[in-house]
């Protein structure tokens, strides 16, 4: 049984059809990449799965439950968390407080000491331990991207959806974050990742979905995707470095 099933979902904003009958499955423990040119509907797809928007048609099943019309705060409690393409930290909260909001949000019933232990673990894992007292508004982008991941992990998510985590980062920062994603995958998290840095994504994942103008035009291994004529025409052709 797949962890997540997206069944023929569509979404329009006014007269603009942004997602057109997209279907795919995500199995537990997978690390899947989603690529596509600007305006392909990648972030809208994430917004639909995470409950920020609701699809006009189709359904979304998570852990065998229909979550199509559920609100984001209910989905988080079911084990589905996300990060944002344009970072959305709580700017006036410290790094530690940003993570604690996630603890409150999912209503952890653990003891204070257990919560503190979990907090330290997440800070350590995401490389934010030294910055725990810093206000989020004072952090550089690289740390904010990590904070996005840290907050999502803090919800105790089973499925982590990362929206362009590498965008705007330096090469060394991308490498560090790729390592973090690998670590999170290795401890059992299922990860769905949108990325524009195609080379990094194809290195990281075993399966890639390609969106183009709101449609899923290809699904396969990175190698299959690299060689697909339609994908090259629609997207990879622009990215000379991945050829």
């Amino acid at each position, binding site marked *: 049984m797949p962890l997540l099933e997206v069944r023929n979902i569509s979404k329009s904003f006014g007269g603009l059809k942004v997602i057109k009958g997209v279907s795919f499955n995500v199995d537990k423990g997978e690390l899947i990449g989603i690529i596509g040119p600007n305006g392909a509907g990648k972030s809208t797809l994430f917004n639909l799965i*995470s*409950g*920020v928007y609701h699809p006009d048609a189709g359904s979304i099943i998570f852990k065998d439950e229909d979550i199509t019309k559920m*609100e*984001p*705060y209910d989905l*988080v*409690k079911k084990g589905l*968390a*996300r990060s*944002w393409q344009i970072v*959305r*930290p*709580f*700017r*006036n*909260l410290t790094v530690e*407080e*940003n993570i*604690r*909001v*996630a603890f*409150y*949000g*999912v*209503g952890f019933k653990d003891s204070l000491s257990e919560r503190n232990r979990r907090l330290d673990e997440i800070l350590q894992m995401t490389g934010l331990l030294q910055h725990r007292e810093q206000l989020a508004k004072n952090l550089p982008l690289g740390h904010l991207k990590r904070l996005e991941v840290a*907050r999502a992990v*803090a*919800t105790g998510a089973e499925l982590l959806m990362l929206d362009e985590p590498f965008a705007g980062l330096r090469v060394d920062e991308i490498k560090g974050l790729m390592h973090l994603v690998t670590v999170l995958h290795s401890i059992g998290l299922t990860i769905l990742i949108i990325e524009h840095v195609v080379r990094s994504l194809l290195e990281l994942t075993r399966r890639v979905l390609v969106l183009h103008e709101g449609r899923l035009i290809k699904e396969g291994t990175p190698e299959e995707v690299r060689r697909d004529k339609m994908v090259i025409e629609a997207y990879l052709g622009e990215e000379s470095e991945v050829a």
Partner: protein
Amino acid sequence: MLRLKSLATLSSFKITGLILIIIMVVVPPALRDPYLLHILTLGSIYAIFAMSWDILMYTNQLSLGHSFFFGLAAYSTALFNSSLRMHPILAIIAAVAITAIVGLGLSIPFFKLRGAYYALGMAGLAKIATLTVTAYSDITGGEEGIRGITPLTTDHVGNYYIALATMLASLIFLYYTAEHSRFSLIFRAVRDDEVAAKCLGIVVHKYRLLCLVLGSAFAGLGGAVYATYLTIVNPNAMAIIPTTALVVTMGMVGGVTTIIGPALGAYLIVFLDSFFRVAENIRLLAYALTATLILLLLPGGIIRYAIKAANYLIREVRS
């Protein structure tokens, strides 16, 4: 956003607060100046009102019609007391309960409104309510309002202590809730980014509702005490101008989302208003100019600078 603890160590913060409270309890009654006591009593009542407006700001609910709750409670108190012959204390309790319930009910139509739409929605509510109380003159006394509300006491000092005690109790409750309770972190997260908070499991509307109920209840408390103190209530108590304009100015001059700041702002604005009464012709202009200058020269409100000054003084005394 201004975080009080980052500006002052807790001990100096507590010391300053304690000194201020002692001064307010001891000095004005000792001076036996009825006008000073009147100004401070009004200042305390408006401080409750200003703090009630500020608690809404903790979840991004900028209300431009907060006078609705203040006026609703003032009229309810007046009607309960004059028509139903209710004891003023019972009338106050009933009026606060009514405003809290109305606040709860309003969360339904205001559920999806944000930003300017929310602010204008609230302003519209206050306008409709003001027109209504003016129109139904057989019940509300129309433009003249309702007179002869039974006061809690006729003694200046007694009135001052009632208003001060109510203000301090409101301040402690609201400050603790907004800054030190388990809600504090969530309020600040919601204020920074509602959508991100939702996606971390925060049921945002629940916390907005909590702030709206608290804001309406405490505005109601201010309005009810105001009615029993002045023994008269008229449509101005509910009107956007002057009453909402006054509370927004108090909040912004004092320092938004600090609870204590708007309370200080209320005392300052009431003092300025009475000070400029010596020049009635230019009173409004002088008052508006001073408030504008404070907003321009002291961004973040007077609370930020008051705490810095208090810290400096305490350091000097200690050294």
